[in-house]
C-alpha cells in the first residue's frame, strides 16, 4: 500500500508561513524544526550556563554567602535538568538529527512530519514550566536524579512540576526516537543500503533504539514517584514499607543510557566532520557501525554501576563492573578510528576541526576516569565527590557540547548560506578549551581529596582549587561572547558560502545553501560513498561543482 505525501485537496506546506515567521510556527519542514531545536536549545544553554555560573560563584568561598542553601539546591537541580533535557539531548538528537537525517537517507522530510513538529513544540512549554517552578514556592531541590526519600521530603510543588516537565520532555524524546527509526529504516532512497549510510544515521539509529527502550521506564518511575508525593503512597518511601533502591534501579535504567543518548549522536557528528576537514575517508566504517551497536547493547546493561554504594550485592557489583569495562572496547575502537582518519590527512584547523579534536582529547580523559569509576574499590572512595562531577562534565561538556559547537561551525554555511569567521572560531575554541580544562581538571583533585558534590559549603582547605575552577568557569562563560558575535555578524554580513564550501560528498552539501523546502529541486542524489575523499575521488568532487 502506498500513500501520497500530501493529500490532493490541501497542501499544508503552502499554508506554512515563509520568512523568519516560519521559525516560530508549527512548521512541518524538517530543516525548520531542526533549527527550532537548535536555537531553543541554545537559549536554554544560556540559562543553564548562567545557573552554572551562579554555582561556581557560590563555591569561590567555603561558606554559603552568595545564596541560601535552599536556593543553591534549586539552582543545582535546575542546572542539571536544563542542561541535560533541554540542551544536549534536544540538540544532538533533535536539532542535527532533524536537519541531517532526511538528507542522509535521501528523503524530502522525516517519516512523520506532524509528530516531529509536536515533539519539538513539547519542549518550550516544559522548559518554561521548569524555570517558572522557581517562582512557585521554589523549584525542585533534589538534584537531576530526584532520589527519594529526598525528593519526597523536599517541598512538593517544585518537585511535581519538575516531574511533569521531565515527563513532557521524555514524551518529546520518544516521539523523536520513533520518527528517526522509521525514517532511517523505512524512508531510505531506493538503491541506498544501510551500510552505505553516513555514520550519523547509524548513531541516530542506535540512540533512537535506546530512547524508545529506556525513556518509558523513566516515565513510569516518575509516575510512581509523583504518586508518592501527591497521594502519599509508599513505593519509594521506606517509612511506609517502600524501597528506594528500586527507584535507583529504574532511574538509572534510563539515565545511564541517557549518557549514550547524549554522546552517541556526538560520535556520529564527529564521524561526519573529521573526514571532510582532513580530506580522508572515514577509517573503519564497518567497525564503527558494530561498535555503535555494541555500545547500544552494553549501554542497556550497565546501569547499576551508579549504585555501588547503595548496598548492591557482590555478584551485581561484579557483573556491572565487567560490563562497564567492556564498554571501553567499542568506544576505544571509535577513538582509534578517528585518530586513524586524521592520520596523514590534509587537515584544516578551522573551528569545526578544532572543536572535534578538542572533543577527542576531552572525551578520552573523561573515558579514562569513567573506566576508573567503574571499579568498585575506587568508586566507593570517590562516590558522590567532585571526581564524579569532573568525570561527568568531561563526558557531556568536553564531549557533547564541544561536538555541538563543532557541528555549528561545520553546518552553519548550510543552515544560512553564509560563512562564519574562522579566526573568531579559533579564538572561541582556545578560550573554551582552556576555560573548560581549568574549570574541571582541578575538580578531580577535589574529589580525590574528599570534597562532596551538591553542597554549598565545604572545607576551607579546598578554597584555592575551587577558585581556580571558578576562573575556568568564567572563561567558559566569556567564550560564549565571541561565538554569539560571530553568529550574528555572519548572518548579517558574512561571506556567501556557496552550495558546498567544504568540498564535501555527503548529500546535504549537494543542494543549495540554505536548501529548498523539499531538499532537492529534482531527484535526490544517490550517494553510495559518502566518505570517498582522497586522490581516487578528487576528480569527482570537481565534477560535482
Amino acid at each position, binding site marked *: 500500500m*502506498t*500513500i501520497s*505525501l500530501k493529500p490532493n485537496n490541501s497542501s499544508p506546506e503552502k499554508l506554512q508561513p515563509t520568512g523568519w515567521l516560519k521559525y516560530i510556527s508549527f512548521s512541518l519542514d524538517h530543516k525548520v524544526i531542526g533549527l527550532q531545536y537548535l536555537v531553543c536549545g541554545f537559549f536554554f544553554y544560556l540559562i543553564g550556563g548562567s545557573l552554572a555560573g551562579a554555582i561556581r560563584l557560590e563555591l569561590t568561598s567555603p561558606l554559603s554567602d552568595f545564596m541560601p542553601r535552599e536556593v543553591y539546591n534549586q539552582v543545582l537541580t535546575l542546572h542539571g535538568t536544563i542542561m541535560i533535557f533541554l540542551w544536549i539531548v534536544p540538540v544532538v538528537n533533535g536539532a542535527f538529527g532533524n536537519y541531517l537525517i532526511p538528507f542522509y537517507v535521501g528523503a524530502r522530510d522525516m517519516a512523520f512530519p506532524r509528530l516531529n513538529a509536536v515533539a519539538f513544540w513539547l519542549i518550550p512549554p516544559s522548559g518554561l514550566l521548569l524555570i517558572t517552578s522557581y517562582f512557585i514556592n521554589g523549584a525542585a531541590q533534589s538534584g537531576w536524579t530526584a532520589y527519594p526519600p529526598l525528593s519526597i521530603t523536599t517541598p512538593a510543588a517544585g518537585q511535581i512540576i519538575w516531574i511533569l516537565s521531565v515527563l513532557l520532555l521524555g514524551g518529546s524524546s520518544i516521539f523523536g526516537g520513533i520518527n528517526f527509526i522509521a525514517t532511517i529504516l*523505512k524512508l531510505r532512497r531506493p538503491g541506498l543500503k544501510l551500510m552505505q549510510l553516513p555514520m550519523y544515521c547509524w548513531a541516530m539509529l542506535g540512540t533512537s533504539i535506546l530512547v524508545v527502550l*529506556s525513556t518509558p521506564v523513566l516515565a513510569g518511575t516518575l509516575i510512581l514517584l509523583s504518586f508518592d508525593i501527591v497521594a502519599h503512597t509508599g513505593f519509594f518511601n521506606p517509612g511506609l*514499607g517502600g524501597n528506594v533502591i528500586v527507584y535507583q534501579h529504574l532511574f538509572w535504567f534510563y539515565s545511564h543510557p541517557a549518557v549514550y543518548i547524549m554522546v552517541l549522536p556526538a560520535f556520529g557528528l564527529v564521524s561526519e566532520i573529521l573526514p571532510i576537514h582532513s580530506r580522508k575517508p572515514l577509517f573503519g566504517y564497518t567497525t564503527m557501525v558494530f561498535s555503535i551497536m555494541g555500545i547500544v547493547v552494553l549501554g542497556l546493561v550497565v546501569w547499576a554501576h551508579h549504585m555501588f554504594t547503595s548496598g548492591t550485592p557482590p555478584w551485581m557489583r561484579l557483573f556491572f563492573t565487567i560490563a562497564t569495562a567492556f564498554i571501553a572496547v567499542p568506544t576505544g575502537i571509535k577513538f582509534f578510528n578517528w585518530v586513524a582518519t586524521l592520520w596523514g590527512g590534509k587537515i584544516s584547523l578551522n573551528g569545526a576541526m578544532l572543536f572535534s579534536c578538542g572533543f577527542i582529547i576531552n572525551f578520552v580523559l573523561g573515558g579514562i576516569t569513567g573506566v576508573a569509576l567503574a571499579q568498585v574499590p575506587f568508586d566507593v572512595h570517590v562516590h558522590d565527590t567532585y571526581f564524579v562531577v569532573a568525570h561527568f562534565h568531561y563526558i557531556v561538556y568536553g564531549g557533547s557540547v564541544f561536538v555541538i559547537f563543532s557541528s555549528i561551525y561545520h553546518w552553519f554555511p548550510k543552515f544560512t548560506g553564509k560563512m562564519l569567521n574562522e579566526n573568531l572560531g579559533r579564538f572561541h575554541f582556545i578560550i573554551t578549551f582552556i576555560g573548560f580544562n581549568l574549570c574541571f581538571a582541578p575538580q578531580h583533585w577535589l574529589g580525590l581529596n574528599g570534597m562532596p558534590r551538591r553542597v554549598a559549603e565545604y572545607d576551607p582547605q579546598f578554597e584555592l582549587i575551587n577558585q581556580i575552577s571558578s576562573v575556568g568557569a568564567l572563561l567558559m562563560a566569556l567564550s560564549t561572547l565571541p561565538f554569539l558575535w560571530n553568529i550574528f555578524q555572519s548572518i548579517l554580513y558574512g561571506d556567501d558560502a556557496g552550495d558546498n564550501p567544504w568540498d564535501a560528498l555527503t548529500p546535504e552539501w*549537494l543542494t543549495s545553501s540554505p536548501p529548498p523546502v523539499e531538499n532537492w529541486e529534482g531527484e535526490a542524489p544517490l550517494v553510495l560513498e559518502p566518505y570517498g575523499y582522497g586522490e581516487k575521488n578528487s576528480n*569527482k568532487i570537481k565534477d*560535482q561543482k
Partner: protein
Amino acid sequence: MTSIVPKEQSSENKKDLSTEEHEDFRLFGLIAFLIADGMTFAGFFAAYLTFKAVNPIGPDAIYELELPLPTLNTILLLVSSFTFHRAGKFLEKNEAKQCQKWLLLTFLLGVAFLISQMFEYFTLPFGLTDNLFASTFYALTGFHGLHVTLGSIMIMIIWWQTRVPYGRVNKENIFPFEAVELYWHFVDGIWVVLFIILYLL
C-alpha cells in the same frame, strides 16, 4: 563504482513533487510506539516483582486477591480481541454494517471490563495507600485501565468513522482501523501478562 549519481536531467523530474509516493509505514511507527509503551509496563512489572521479592508485607496486612472477577475480566478482553478481529474481516469485505455491529460489541466488552474492574476496586479490602502491595496493585491495574479507557474511546471513534456513506474509514483507508486493532490487541496482551504476574504468581 561511482560515488555520486548526478541529477538526471529528464523532463520526468519536472513533475509535481507533491504527488511522490512512498510506502505506508504508519503501522511501523505505531509498533515502535507500542514497544515504548510496553517498556513502561515492563518497568512497572520489574518494580512490582522486586517489591515482592525484597519488601515483605507486614503479617497483618491484607493482600489476598479474589480470582473469579479478574478471570472474568481476562475472558472479556480476550473475547473482545476476537470480536475486533471479526469486525476487521467484515471491513475488508466492505460490509460496513456487520463491521459496525462487531465494533460495538467490542466496545461493550471493553466497557464491561472497566465496570467489572471498578467493581473489584470497590469490593477489595485494601485502599491505595494501605501497603506497598496495594499501592502497586492499584498503580498497575489503574495504568492498564487507562489504556483500556483510551482504547474504548478510539473504538467508538472508529465505529463512527465506519458508517456508510460518510465515514472516512473503509476498505481503501483501513489504517485507522488497523491501528486501533493493533493497540487493542497490545492492551489485551499486557492484561494477560499483568493477570499472570499480579493474580497468579
